[in-house]
């Protein structure tokens, strides 16, 4: 790997953010040359970013955590000789958990951008759309790659602003703008609270580096306040109940490709939540209390998300409530791991498996929920209808879209052999040993999820061919290909879950549990 592309692979963490930024700023220029050039550059930029992401992930999973120092003579020179052991440079630290998130961003980002090329053909100003999409990519990539709390705040803001602008990009008679304003206002408030938490840590430890603070942490009263200031805004960003209200508004009004990628953006906020609780604070945290806090958010999100989804008539709003519900599974699994973190025998008995289930569900959810939003977008694209009461019989004309929808719907409901079942299987069994009641709620939520998606399936695709949709055809090829790729991954993840768990999920769990590797990557190089 060291000589790959003439040593360029040593700069993969920087390229992960630099490439989408560069292509984002090229977009207005490209539009002046030719409209099609924006398509080519956007796909090329996202393709290169994904390539960087995949190569970086392979490197981390084969050789261990990667550190990158900006401005150093060599990118692995984390501590300047005259810094007194304080990491003063801007550092990126990508361990297995970060690489796991980079992989998700790479796959879903590329699929949704290719999907959007045709989707956005109907609208002018594609350059603005692509520029914002690539800025969002840069923001979320930076969030999962950086090892510095202030940079994390900066990337959080980039992703929030780009995400809000993307929600509003099609105006939608002002409704989308209203949804975007809510998203922007809540994100900005959450971002400021996060910044306040960072400031509390900086005043005490004199550094913004996560590894350095984790090593030096004393868990003062101010640190306790900082935990809350870092964790609660991130829980809001990932749609945890009762801070989820923005999500159905924003997800339902954004273009379908954007919504699919906003799911990933929310999961990056969940990454920050887990990174804060495990890597930054876990040695000094009241683990049971914070574990139960995360579990409580998870259970509320699961149950309220799914029950609010059932009566919805707007297909994307319904799916948005399911996104909230599915986030609950992830919080539940990782929360159980956090609650038993201080008890090694319980952690080995079921805590690690619960965390593996929760983290595996992040990946699975990104794939199947992305897929479901894309299928909903394809139906809206062809029919112009988003109200389930006005849809029906589309299975006759949109067979491929229907098949892709079925794969996503069965996966989200936890039906074998799709990927959602594999992660839910790990969750049900391990959470049952922690508290059977929680596991029963999780199973009940899956039953309700199935019921909800039966309704969507029937309303959109079943029934006689309706005369008003006589002219409707299958979605355009790039959209079908994007949906197809995600559907294949959903099936493969379900048929070969062990491959994913052994090579990607378990290293990510270890990265969360073991602070030492993360700290060593920065402090001992």
């Amino acid at each position, binding site marked *: 790997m060291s000589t790959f592309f003439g040593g360029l692979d040593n700069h993969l963490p920087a390229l992960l953010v630099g490439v989408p930024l560069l292509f984002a700023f090229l977009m207005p220029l490209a539009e002046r040359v030719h409209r099609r050039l924006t398509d080519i550059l956007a796909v090329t930029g996202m393709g290169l970013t994904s390539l960087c992401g995949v190569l970086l992930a392979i490197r981390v999973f084969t050789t261990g955590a990667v550190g990158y120092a900006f401005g150093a003579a060599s990118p692995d020179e984390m501590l300047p000789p005259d810094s007194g052991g304080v990491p003063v440079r801007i550092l990126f630290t990508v361990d297995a958990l970060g690489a796991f998130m980079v992989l998700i961003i790479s796959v879903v980002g590329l699929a949704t951008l290719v999907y959007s090329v045709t989707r956005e053909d109907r609208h002018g100003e594609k350059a603005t759309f692509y520029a914002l999409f690539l800025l969002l990519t840069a923001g979320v990539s930076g969030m999962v790659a950086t090892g510095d709390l202030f940079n994390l705040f900066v990337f959080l803001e980039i992703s929030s602003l780009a995400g809000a602008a993307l929600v509003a990009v099609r105006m939608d008679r002002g409704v989308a703008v209203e949804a975007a304003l809510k998203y922007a206002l809540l994100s900005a408030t959450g971002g400021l609270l996060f910044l306040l938490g960072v400031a509390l840590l900086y005043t005490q430890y004199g550094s913004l580096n996560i590894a350095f603070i984790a090593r030096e942490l004393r868990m003062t009263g101010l640190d306790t306040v900082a935990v809350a200031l870092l964790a609660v805004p991130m829980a809001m960003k990932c749609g945890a109940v009762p801070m989820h*209200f923005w999500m159905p508004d924003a997800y339902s009004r954004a273009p379908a490709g954007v919504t699919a990628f906003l799911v990933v953006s929310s999961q990056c906020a969940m990454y920050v939540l887990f990174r804060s609780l495990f890597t930054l604070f876990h040695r000094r945290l009241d683990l049971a209390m914070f574990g139960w806090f995360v579990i409580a958010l998870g259970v509320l999100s699961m149950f309220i998300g799914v*029950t609010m989804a059932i009566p919805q008539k707007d297909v994307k709003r319904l799916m948005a409530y399911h996104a909230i519900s599915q986030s609950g599974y992830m919080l539940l699994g990782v929360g159980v791991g956090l609650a038993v973190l201080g008890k090694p025998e319980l952690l080995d008995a079921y805590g690690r498996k619960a965390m593996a289930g929760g983290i595996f569900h992040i990946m699975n959810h990104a794939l199947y929920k992305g897929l479901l939003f894309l299928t909903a977008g394809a139906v809206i694209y062809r029919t112009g209808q988003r109200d389930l009461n006005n849809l029906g019989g589309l299975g006759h004309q949109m067979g491929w879209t229907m098949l892709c929808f079925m794969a996503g719907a069965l996966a989200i409901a936890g039906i074998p052999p799709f990927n959602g079942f594999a992660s839910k299987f790990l969750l049900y*069994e391990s959470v049952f040993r922690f508290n059977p009641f929680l596991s029963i709620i999780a199973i009940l939520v899956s039953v309700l999820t199935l019921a909800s998606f039966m309704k969507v399936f029937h309303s959109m695709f079943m029934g006689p061919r309706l005369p008003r949709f006589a002219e409707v055809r299958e979605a355009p090829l790039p959209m079908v290909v994007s949906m197809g790729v995600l559907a294949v991954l959903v099936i493969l993840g379900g048929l070969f879950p062990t491959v994913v768990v052994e090579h990607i999920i378990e290293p990510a769990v270890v990265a969360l549990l073991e602070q030492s590797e993360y700290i060593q990557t920065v402090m001992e190089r």
Partner: protein
Amino acid sequence: MVFAFSLQSGSGVWHPLVWLAAFAVAAIIARVVLGFGRGSRKTGGDHVKPFLSGNEELDEERIHVRASNLYWGYLEAMKGYYRRLTALHTGNVADYLLWLFGVLAIMIVVGLAT
């Protein structure tokens, strides 16, 4: 080989490829059973039309069961729950912020108290 792809949960095991093989066998059996019936099936004529108590069949637009008609009983039974839950979803961003600050305050107070 098949068991090499089995997922261990710590207390149980999931064999996706075994499940897939069992599903394929069940699908083949179902197809064979369906084939027995198809031979004697009559096509065309009034007996293949839906019987609606002697009434005329409605047109396609009206015969399709719409989303709002599904789970009517469930929604009716849970009316009280939904009334309370929907009331919380005000659409007012000031309320959204209050929930955020409320959760933050609870976490800080509980964190400092323990």
